[in-house]
């Protein structure tokens, strides 16, 4: 048998091997794609109910008597604030169902509109005091049970004793629906309001703003410090110095430290030692900064390193100082890489919740934070809190918040890709 025969004999086997390997690759890609698709479809599907909100159209009577206001020409805002709005929606409901007399039924009936309705009506009257003394058809926010029922999350076909919405309520809802009084609208409140214990009132604006403040602090601290550290280590630090080597090893190690550790560090240093407040975006930003710093230093160093020496030498050759070389030539050329690294580091920071658990960000904060020092929470933590709430409607809210978080992460990664494509220089 000569060499040719040996090769020929094994040829089939070798081709088969290659084919198999290709197949493995295709299978892995398909699998990971399927997982991703399943995850996205599941979350998006579950989130859909949260983007719409059910309202009940009611004729609200803003009479002086109902509001418990004395008749006069004008009212101060304080007077309007203190007027009585609690019964407005319930009275309108009672009028629609005049047969309902028992106290218990009345309670169930008025429970069909959200407890937040009274405050919404209050704000409406404060904005427009001319409403006082008039009657007006108003879309009143429905309670989460009615909302879930209307959206089909609560199934009407299961036996009554197992259903949260009882037969009596179902008949009322059917009547309201037949009268065209049940209306579905886009749930703008989800994007504009803060957290609430009532699913129909809860929104992510507070958490988004908290995330924004946190990210601003993180960016302001980690970008300049990270880039400066990387420039020093790449351009100025003495080579073959044990101390510098130690720093380099440690930066790489820091990037791999679990983020909860930074939370404990932040708790010990910022809160216990410096006495900074808990739950403040400033502290959160400073903790996440610790986590992000090595993630910015490493890609920055890599992209500074990838600037060809010829550029440096050329600049030095025409008489530029070292500073000029770095700031006029090296950094601008390395910038796409630096920005990409930073944006991906920030995207990771945006999705981080573990270190923030330690510094009091797992909190119920209903008011929208207005500054870096106000109590706040962040998006991932908001998701965590909602996922642990008993009300059924929070499941949809949880998924919707995840969708919002994913959109932001996609946008940031997309931006990183665009920057890289646009400014990338090839040598």
């Amino acid at each position, binding site marked *: 048998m000569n060499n040719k025969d040996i090769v020929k004999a094994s040829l089939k086997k070798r081709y088969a091997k290659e084919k198999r390997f290709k197949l493995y690759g295709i299978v892995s890609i398909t699998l990971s794609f399927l997982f991703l698709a399943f995850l996205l479809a599941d979350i998006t599907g579950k989130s859909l109910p949260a983007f719409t909100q059910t309202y009940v159209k009611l004729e609200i009577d803003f009479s002086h008597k109902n509001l418990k206001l004395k008749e006069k020409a004008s009212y101060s805002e304080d007077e309007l*604030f203190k007027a009585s709005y609690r019964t407005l929606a319930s009275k309108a409901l009672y009028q629609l169902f005049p047969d309902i007399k028992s106290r218990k039924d009345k*309670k169930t009936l008025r*429970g069909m509109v959200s*407890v*937040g309705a009274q*405050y919404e009506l209050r704000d409406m009257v404060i904005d427009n005091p001319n409403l006082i003394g008039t009657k007006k058809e108003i879309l009143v926010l429905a309670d989460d049970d009615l909302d879930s029922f209307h959206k089909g999350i*609560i*199934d009407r076909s*299961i036996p009554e004793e*197992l*259903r*949260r919405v009882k037969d009596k309520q179902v008949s009322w809802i059917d009547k309201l629906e037949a009268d065209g009084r049940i209306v579905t609208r886009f749930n703008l409140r989800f994007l504009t309001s803060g957290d*609430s*214990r*009532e699913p129909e009132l809860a929104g992510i604006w507070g958490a988004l703003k908290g995330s924004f403040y946190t990210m601003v*602090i993180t960016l*302001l*601290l980690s*970008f*300049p*410090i990270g*880039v*400066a550290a990387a420039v020093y280590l790449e351009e100025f630090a003495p080579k073959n110095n044990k101390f510098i080597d130690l720093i380099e090893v440690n930066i790489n190690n820091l990037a791999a430290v679990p983020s909860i550790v930074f939370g404990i560090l932040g708790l010990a240093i910022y809160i216990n030692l*410096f*006495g*900074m*407040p*808990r*739950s403040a975006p*400033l502290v959160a930003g*400073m903790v996440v900064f610790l986590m992000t710093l090595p993630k910015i230093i490493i890609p920055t160093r890599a992209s500074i390193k990838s600037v060809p020496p010829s550029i440096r030498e050329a600049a030095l050759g025409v008489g530029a100082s070292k500073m000029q070389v770095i*700031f006029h030539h090296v950094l601008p050329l390395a910038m796409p890489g630096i920005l990409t690294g930073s944006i991906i580091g920030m995207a990771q920071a945006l999705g981080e919740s573990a270190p923030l658990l330690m510094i*009091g960000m*797992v*909190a*119920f*904060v*209903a*008011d929208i934070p207005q500054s*870096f*020092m106000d*109590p706040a929470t962040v998006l991932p933590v908001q998701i965590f*809190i909602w*996922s*642990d*709430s*008993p*009300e*059924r409607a929070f*499941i949809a809210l949880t998924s919707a918040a995840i969708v919002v978080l994913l959109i932001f992460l996609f946008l940031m990664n997309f931006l990183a890709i665009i920057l890289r494509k646009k400014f990338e220089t090839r040598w």
Partner: protein
Amino acid sequence: MIFKKAILASIALATLSTYSLSVNARDNIEIVGSSTVFPFATVVAETFGNKTGMPTPKIEATGTGGGMKLFCKGHGLDTPDVTNASRRIKKSEFDLCQKNGVKNITEVLVGFDGIAIANELNGPDFNSLTLRSLYLGLAAKVPASVKGGSDLEMINNPFKNWSEIDSKLPNVAIKVLGPPPTSGTRDALQELGIEGGCKTFPQMKAMKKTDSKLYKTLCRTVREDGHYVEMGENDNLIISKLTNEPTTLGVFGFSFLDQNSDKVKGSNIDGNPITFENIATGAYPVSRPLYFYVKNDHRDSIKGLNQFINEFVSDDAMGEEGYLLDKGLIPAPEEEHAKTVNNARNAVPLQL
């Protein structure tokens, strides 16, 4: 240069933050503590904010123990004003408070929480569950007498099937999904459920007097041989898992059972169904009290604290038709409730 600006900005920021450290005045109430009380305290906070127009209190879910630590750290305004607890304050925690100058605190009993032992709606029926069978099913060690051994010897839990413990229980493998040791629900399961069943053995009851430490270890330790599965603190997760495994039991708070009555059913314990009334009267044995503790020294300096406390104990919230009850809170008996309201309104200090 952009870098110069960025560096300047961060220096300015750092100065700003050090400056703001020295200013400690705050205009919102700060609350920490139990994640079981969290859903109730947050509703009150929200209502308080809406009613008064004052900032809504910030409520952190730190767990009961974590909350006590923060609460008792000192009496300055940089410490929380209120801590929630799913059990009574311990003597050691009370002493820590005293030592750190938190001398004047008021205890407020919010109500009760029942702990449901539940399985999937169409799954087998566990209504013959008793505290004793709960103990035999979940404890790490059980008296050897249950397998014909001596009374005084303890053996590793030999039971694999519920029907081995009690022929009235379904013939399915013992598998219980429940919270991890950091959770107050787990404490209650151990102290009221498992220990409650343990006490039904006379020799164990006798041991409580002679060697209370060993008694506690034996009567409260949960088996770790895979029949009790720790699921993390997320009760929704337990419920979604139960819907896929009809023969598995889950342990979670009553408010979750209340919200998911179309998916899971709570088992009777000692013949008592888990209902609102049975928990309130104490007939359902696995229920625990919920408290919050207030720093009375903060009542003058923190704006709105008094109003917040009054809102919490008001009839609107805790009363027969209160909104807390809609959220699944089980109110305290009338007499105790009246005492609580009085304590809360008049800032009666707690003595231990």
